[in-house]
């Protein structure tokens, strides 16, 4: 097992902002390391805004 990547790199990975040369290595670590995968999964959850349904009470144009 490789050492855990720095938190900064895990945060970059989760935001799609990882340095290209490190992307595959970080993904490979994530696949093997349940702890890091848990951190990233929680981060993804935190960064994703809750779904909101669009309001539909505006009058329809052209009707």
């Amino acid at each position: 097992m490789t050492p855990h990547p720095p938190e900064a790199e895990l945060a970059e990975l989760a935001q799609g902002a990882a340095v290209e040369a490190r992307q595959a290595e970080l993904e490979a670590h994530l696949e093997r390391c349940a702890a890091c995968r848990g951190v990233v999964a929680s981060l993804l959850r935190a960064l994703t805004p809750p779904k909101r349904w669009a309001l539909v009470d505006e009058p329809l144009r052209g009707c």
Partner: protein
Amino acid sequence: MQTDELAQFSARAQQALGFVPGHDLLGPWVQPMSALATLDPGVALACGLFHQLPEARAYFEQQVAPRVRAALQKAGASATEVDELVQASLTRVLVENGGERLRQYRGHGTFAAFVITVALRLFTNARTSSSTTREASDDGLERLPAALDLERHLARSQHRSHFASAFRAALEALAPRQRTLLKLNLVNGSSIDELAPMYQVSRATVARWLAQSRDALRVETLRRLSGTTRMEGDDLEGLLASLESGFDVSLRRFITEATPSTRSEE
């Protein structure tokens, strides 16, 4: 020190602060931080915190800390843990090893996401060390066969171990990204909406990747199983039918049963 990345960022931040006059209706810290934001908001905030600027600390408390708290709550931390972890995260980022972690932040992605990651790591470490019932290296996907709907067929046909080894081999045969995606989705409960930004692709693309991975896993498991066992007749037909019709349902059930604490209410 001049070559130090942080020192360079700091110089830019100080310069930007010097050019900003007055204050803003929203608070005296808003204007300087807004000006810094035109350079790089995350790095500017990191510099401000490192140099103990009151404006940066105020900005952190008002804009970043609530997001860290919310992330920890979603991850299952108690109210007491949340307060402790926010402070511990800040200490870890700013103080430990002379701010070594802060220097690892390059401004790729938001500063809030960086601090949230540090907080989640602390939370995970605390939970792991305080519980002997949870395994840090627990990897649910490999244990998937035991939880599948196929159990009845496998028990009856006495091919449970064959199926488990075929499944593990099929899993290993997937590309690393496919395994990572499946584990994030099936074991950790990451949704398509959450995964799409990580890979910088659309939701539809992530959905397609996941479907392809599941199909590849199912087909390869079947192929290896039929090659290593001498199942035939009703046994093989029953197993094939279960694999074809119930695979996805079984996977979802496995997630619910095996990892009940991975998702909080949403």
